[in-house]
């Protein structure tokens, strides 16, 4: 039986990064993955393919609606959905192959098959060629998550689908119903709306992107509504009827009462749940927390000795980069180094147009915690680069501690804020003050100037307002 210092189950961004880091630190590592293609949900059916489609569909929409304003005359613009999907698949292929190369380069042994934790130090892999037994000094569970379902609306992969299928429709739905206005619902809703579908998004809560700052969520909702997305907040789906070629949803809201929506497909995007089944966790005696996630301590240790868990399996936001950082922390902990994740400085991004990005705490959270804060806001509209881009919608909002001026939360809705947020994350990681950001030189003309102006606005010193 092969013996490893570390066996990682699941080759998503958490698992494969954990494997690389452990290998860098001189450990013998095996990476167990049930799919041939490495990279997990993120690379295969999540972050990456959705970004490919968002970019492609944005080009289509921009050419149709915005090119003329730039003096670009495009003639008749049409969609080749198959080509768009092929491009997406090629990108996914390049990246997943890249993960395979990284494993080779770092001498991580990849074992294909369903990994099962038999005991604290033993993993069996059920592959096509039979069962492989691995002896592990340490195990890192990184099986990720699967789309959550609604009890009255089981997925059928055809009419009622998860994000996985919604990334690969073979034709543009006429009417797409989306349940859930989180990142997945809004991003895929945007993709299909741009490609021609009539999209209605139903959200149970009173705001889109419920994790975000309320003001920013409102700004995003307004922008998406203007683009033609029909967003129903505070609305519950109470019943569903799946027919041959369409689906009927009965929705109910305080204000609007009951109503029936019809669509040719329904995307259920009501979140994800940890993939705790099928890996022998229960049999091995791994404890779960109240929310059904694998229970871990501050060092990501489970209740079994030498067994760790990371990413979507455990508490915290279900984000690839959070899983990656946890993977690194686990590898370093196992190697005897001080592994650590700073959960206060994990960015969160929604790749709609405008994009939404945030790090740190929201106004509501600060108020609830009784933390005194000052707010600085600045709009993208007066910014030169935003005007040149033709994307003037949105704002940056900075929340800083009233006494120490330390950054507590940075919230953005606007063009390319997925990239702008990095500056705020670094600043927060270094526990900078709003004034530190404000006194840092920002290139002109760039969108980053809006960040600086918002930082200045915390002290009411904006230069361009």
């Amino acid at each position, binding site marked *: 039986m092969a013996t490893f210092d570390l066996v990682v189950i699941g080759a998503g961004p958490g698992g494969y990064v954990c494997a690389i880091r452990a290998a860098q630190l001189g450990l013998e590592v095996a990476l167990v993955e049930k799919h041939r293609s490495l990279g997990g949900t993120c690379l295969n059916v999540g972050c990456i393919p959705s970004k490919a489609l968002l970019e492609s569909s944005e080009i289509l929409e921009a050419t149709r609606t915005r090119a003329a304003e730039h003096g670009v005359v495009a003639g008749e613009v049409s969609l080749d959905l198959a080509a768009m999907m092929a491009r997406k698949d090629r990108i996914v292929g390049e990246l997943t192959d890249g993960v395979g190369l990284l494993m080779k380069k770092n001498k991580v042994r990849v074992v294909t098959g369903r990994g099962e934790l038999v005991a604290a130090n033993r993993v069996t892999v059920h592959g096509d060629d039979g069962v492989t037994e691995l002896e592990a000094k340490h195990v890192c569970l990184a099986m990720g998550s699967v789309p959550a379902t609604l009890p009255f609306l089981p997925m059928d992969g055809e009419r009622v689908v998860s994000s996985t299928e919604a990334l690969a429709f073979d034709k543009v739905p006429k009417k797409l119903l989306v349940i859930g206005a989180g990142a997945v619902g809004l991003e895929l809703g945007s993709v299909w709306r741009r490609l021609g579908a009539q999209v209605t998004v139903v959200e149970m809560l009173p705001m889109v992107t419920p994790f975000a700052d309320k003001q920013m969520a409102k700004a995003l909702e307004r922008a998406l509504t203007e683009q033609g997305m029909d967003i129903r907040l505070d609305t519950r789906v109470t019943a569903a009827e799946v027919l041959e070629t369409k689906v009927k949803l009965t929705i109910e809201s305080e204000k609007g009462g009951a109503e029936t929506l019809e669509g040719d497909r329904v995307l259920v995007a009501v979140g994800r749940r940890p993939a705790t089944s099928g890996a022998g966790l229960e049999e091995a005696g791994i404890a779960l927390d109240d929310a059904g996630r694998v229970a871990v301590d501050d060092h990501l240790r489970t209740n079994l000795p030498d067994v760790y868990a990371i990413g979507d399996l455990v508490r915290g936001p279900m984000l690839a980069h959070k899983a990656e950082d946890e993977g690194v922390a686990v590898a370093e902990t196992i190697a005897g180094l001080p592994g650590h994740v700073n959960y206060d400085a994990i960015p969160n991004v929604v790749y709609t147009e405008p994009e939404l990005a945030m790090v740190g705490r929201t106004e509501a959270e600060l108020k609830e915690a009784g933390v005194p804060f000052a707010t600085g806001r600045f709009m993208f509209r007066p910014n030169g680069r935003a005007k040149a881009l033709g994307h003037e919608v949105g704002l940056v909002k900075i929340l800083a501690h009233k006494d120490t001026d330390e950054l507590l939360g940075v919230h953005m809705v606007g063009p390319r804020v997925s990239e702008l947020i990095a500056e705020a994350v670094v600043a927060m990681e270094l526990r900078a*003050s709003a004034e530190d950001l404000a006194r840092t030189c920002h290139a002109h003309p760039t969108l980053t100037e809006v960040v600086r102006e918002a930082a200045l606005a915390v002290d009411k010193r904006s230069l361009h307002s």
Partner: protein
Amino acid sequence: MAVDVKIPEIGESISEGFLAEWSVPDGSIVAADQPLLVLETDKITMNVTADAAGRLEVLVGEGETVQVGQVVARIDTDAEGDAPAAAEAKDEEAEPAETPPDTPPEKESRSEPTEQQPAEKEAETPPADLSRLTPAVRRLVEEHDLDPSAIPGSGKDGRILKGDVISFLDRRPATAPKPAPTPTVEPPSAPRPGPQPAAEPGERQTRRPMSRLRQRLAERLVEVQQTSAMLTTFNEVDMSRVMALRSRYKETFKERHGVGLGFMSFFVKAAVDALKTVPEVNAAIDGDQVVTNHYYDIGIAVSTDHGLVVPVVREADRLSMAEIEARIAELAAKAQERSLQLADLQGAVFTISNGGVFGSLMSTPILNPPGSAILGMHAIQKRPVVVDDEIVIRPMMYLALSYDHRIVDGRESVTFLKRIVDCIADPDRMLLEI
């Protein structure tokens, strides 16, 4: 060319010190007169500055005991690099360091005023390495003229955050550090909570080396207790007249003299008056002889972030109230910046300590040798008192006088303290010498 960095002459009785900390890392480019290291001796903590500009090569590590005259680093003046321009002129004349950096002045003769020399030093305390600070911290440090090395950083790897500077400023009294209690039997005030390493969560104790200053302080406090017959007498004083005078002339005084009018100058004046009235208190035992002083050098206890020091206001009898206030402010600022010279600390004939700034209502100060008495001031508190058979509310302060009973008797000490009470309760008496 290499210039040696030597431990300077500190004072006659001091031959060694403790290299507490390098203010700039090994290998960095330093400017002439930039503080290089913090030297702790038995009596003071001081900065040693660079004699020339160039690249610093550290020869002796932090935490080592060093002798006066010992070479602890070299400065390669050829590698001046991007050292500030101000340093350059100095280079040509940079003969091997004849005069050690920061040589303290010769012990000054009594008859001379003592002010000018240190005054110019203050201005040139150059910013340490400001480029390593975050922009907001840099701005605050420059605006408030702070020594960043004195600010405890709570950020990553001990970085100083803006919030750290703000709380440092909050802790620091508005202009200069306030006079503070000297050695008293209460818990001594020396190390302030700020610069101490914060305890990691869950740690029940932390351990760190005692500073030289603190060690010496501890020794001296015990020594005084063991070698003198110390006794304390108490009294109380009605502060209303002094307070009224102060609030009436505060603005005018400040305009006229450029320095605030505090209570301290009243007490220094009153102490001088009392010393003149009861000359037995201005005396000390030396072997089997009694030495009586005919000068009035008053020690003022000052609490700083790095410990308690007692700088001396010389010839207080010849100074005006404004001069006394200015001198105290200057000494307190120097204490905070660690630029006090040994000469600033030696030879007080009498000491005043103000525990009131921290709210103390009553304490028994410990003598500060060679002085034979010490006055403890305390918090002012409104209390009902009987005046002309009526109960009235008056701002009252308890006063304590600790004295060496070997040389001062009860009668003298009580008379002395009563004289201070009279002078403060009715400042006109000082003017009229009655």
